[in-house]
């Protein structure tokens, strides 16, 4: 069992959870993920690491309660424990060598983009962080990101924070201002990553995106997490989860992403009917 040490809501939809997993905390790097299962009936769901503390032996995850499993996860409290917590899975993001990076987080993706920004900042890279949210009440990790970025630009869809627009608009503006990025990293909804990649492509800026497909085992076995990259399908769990943003087929990823959507309602109903003892597919790591 993996004890939960701390649970705190970051906003009305998003929860931060600190889990005791000393062996994983020792090894996990930005960009890598864990797979957890709440209990015997639970699904295995992948969640990309938000923070780790090797000394304290903890791994922090951030998730949005959108499907039955994450809704159930959000109800757990400090002192509860997760049955399974496996990792580190996937490959760490290749951050070495970047000098001027732009890290982009969309919604929940901000929680995953954060450790990347922090790592880059700690390794002497100049880091701009651009994040985007629906509205200002959903803004995540503003203080944490301030502490590890050269510049933080927060966009909202409704302009409620006084900065209406998309992350791609902010990115374009920074490029036009001569930011001269050598690395752009995007974590968020597939559609956002698609347009980030389209924005950087004319400039040939190296762009990495963190893909979040359906996943079952997370070790390369089931082939569920196939992502079309260039002409071939790769497995996000063992070949990713980061891929060259200019090669990913985003439309294909969006299409594959909805494959299990029709099951979500039944799962949520069953979970609620079981007195908070249920859950489902549908919610996945990242945004």
């Amino acid at each position, binding site marked *: 069992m993996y004890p939960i040490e701390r649970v705190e809501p970051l906003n009305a939809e998003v929860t931060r959870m600190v889990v005791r997993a000393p062996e994983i905390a020792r090894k996990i790097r930005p960009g890598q993920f864990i797979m957890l299962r709440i209990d015997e009936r639970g699904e295995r769901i992948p969640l990309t690491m938000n923070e780790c503390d090797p000394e304290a032996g903890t791994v922090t995850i951030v998730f949005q309660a959108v499907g039955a499993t994450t809704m159930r996860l959000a109800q757990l409290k400090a002192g509860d424990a997760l049955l399974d917590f496996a990792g580190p899975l996937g490959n760490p993001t290749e951050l070495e060598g970047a000098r001027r990076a732009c890290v982009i987080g969309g919604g929940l993706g901000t929680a995953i983009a954060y450790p990347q920004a922090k790592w880059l900042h700690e390794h002497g890279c100049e880091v701009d962080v651009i994040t985007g949210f629906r509205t200002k009440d959903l803004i995540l990790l503003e203080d944490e990101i301030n502490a590890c970025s050269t510049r933080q630009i927060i966009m909202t869809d409704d302009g409620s924070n006084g900065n209406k627009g998309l992350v791609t608009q902010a990115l374009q503006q920074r490029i036009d201002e001569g930011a001269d990025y050598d690395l752009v990293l995007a974590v968020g909804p597939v559609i956002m990553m698609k347009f980030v990649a389209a924005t950087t492509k004319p400039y040939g800026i190296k762009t990495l995106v963190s893909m979040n497909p359906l996943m079952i085992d997370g070790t390369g076995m089931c082939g569920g997490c196939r992502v079309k990259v260039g002409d071939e399908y790769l497995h996000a769990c063992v070949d990713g989860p980061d891929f060259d943003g200019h090669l990913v087929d985003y439309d294909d990823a969006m299409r594959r992403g909805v494959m299990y959507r029709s099951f979500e309602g039944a799962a949520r109903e069953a*979970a609620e009917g079981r007195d908070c003892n249920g859950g489902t597919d549908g919610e996945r790591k990242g945004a």
Partner: protein
Amino acid sequence: MATSYEVNRQKEKTPVSELDPADRAKTFDEVALGYTEEEAVAEARRCIQCPNTPCVGGCPVGVPIPRFVEQVAEGNFARAYAIVKSANSLPAICGRVCPQETQCEGVCTRGRNGEPVAIGRLERFTSDWAFAHPEEAAAAMDGLREECAAGDELACSIWRGAEGAVSQDLAGKRVAVIGSGPASLTCAGELVKRGCDITVFEALHKVGGVLTYGIPEFRLPKDLVQREVSKLGDKGVSFEVNALVGKLYDIDELMEDRGFDAVFVGTGAGLPSYLGIEGEGLNGVSVASELLTRVNLMKAYQFPEYETPVYAGKKCVVVGGGNVAMDAARTARRLGADVTVVYRRGREEMPARAEEVHHAEQEGIKFLLLTNPVRILGDESGWVSGVECVRMELGEPDASGRRRPAPIEGSEFVIDIDMLVVAAGSKTNPLIAKTTPGLEVTPRSLIVADERTGATSKPGVFAGGDAVIGAATVILAMGAGKRAAAGIGEYLTQE
């Protein structure tokens, strides 16, 4: 031939009760119900106790088959179990999933004129009987040991098997076993008999490897697998689940930081192969291991009681001709699909066990042989809608000795479907190879290991099973696990 019983001259195997095929299509309950005591005795008496015992040679772990069959024929079921168990650490599993028709039963003397003795069913019977009568079974093991101690030669020859493949005392030695499938469980079982301290590392949350995530419940009940695992636990084997070696630890760390004296790698062949044709990314298309993992490991057939869902269409094509293809086809059938297996060669060339093909047919699964998919078709929303196939004809034998299929030009046709499962084999996960300096692997990431000892190019590291030979059978993996245990025993005592 000298038998202590009257030989049953019946040419056919004693039939075994099975769930009705019509009911089977709706349930994941085990299909074969196993012999009753009377049926087992009747079948065992079909063995003529021929002196050359080809069956023993046909068994990859050398079960003294005529000896245990004789005991079944006499109604001494506990003793029969003790004899089987001496040579085979997982008889309840092997009795169910071994390809007996190409092993022990394939060379059975009775099979020259009629059907061979149903050795697999008898093996299953003895282990199921022992599970229902644990005290008698344990007493029979003790009996065998005592007879050997008293100098009985036959008892000793059998007891040597029970004592295990490892002859050295390994108290105080620590071995890490990576993966928890049949090769690993066998290796761990053999080593723990000599007092070796064993930790098995499993990447998933449940132990058993392919026995747990791959082979379906209706062929191999998962309770039975967990029962065998817990027996190893009782003997002192430790299990660490959620531990993916190569990520959480690498082999050098296990040896240097965690103090293991040797490592056995039994990580299997878990990576799926694809057809490499257009449309494999369509929704409704999966590889067999996704379907099987959802259903077997995650119990998706009990969704939403269990939270993992599984997609099942109304009309499904399964591509492939092996046991995994049969498992996938029969699973899809149970999930409600009308299933057709498409295989590019003929019936003769199908690698699947005859019994599995037979069971699949009984359950209403159709076979389109000498047929190869060339393109998967999708609808405008990206879901699979059909598969274009081409008829094949067999030409000259290829390197594997099977006749090479070639497409017949102009014979293309389309099958309308809403589900397609690819069962085109599996490859070795390269993770261990990539993270273990000094470990020699083939270009296909298979670990290079000595056939006799399992020793790899890296001192102290042994390997066996599918990770070494590519996707094969449970029993071959067990044989390799057993030989590697002996190799590890030698290695640990020569230092």
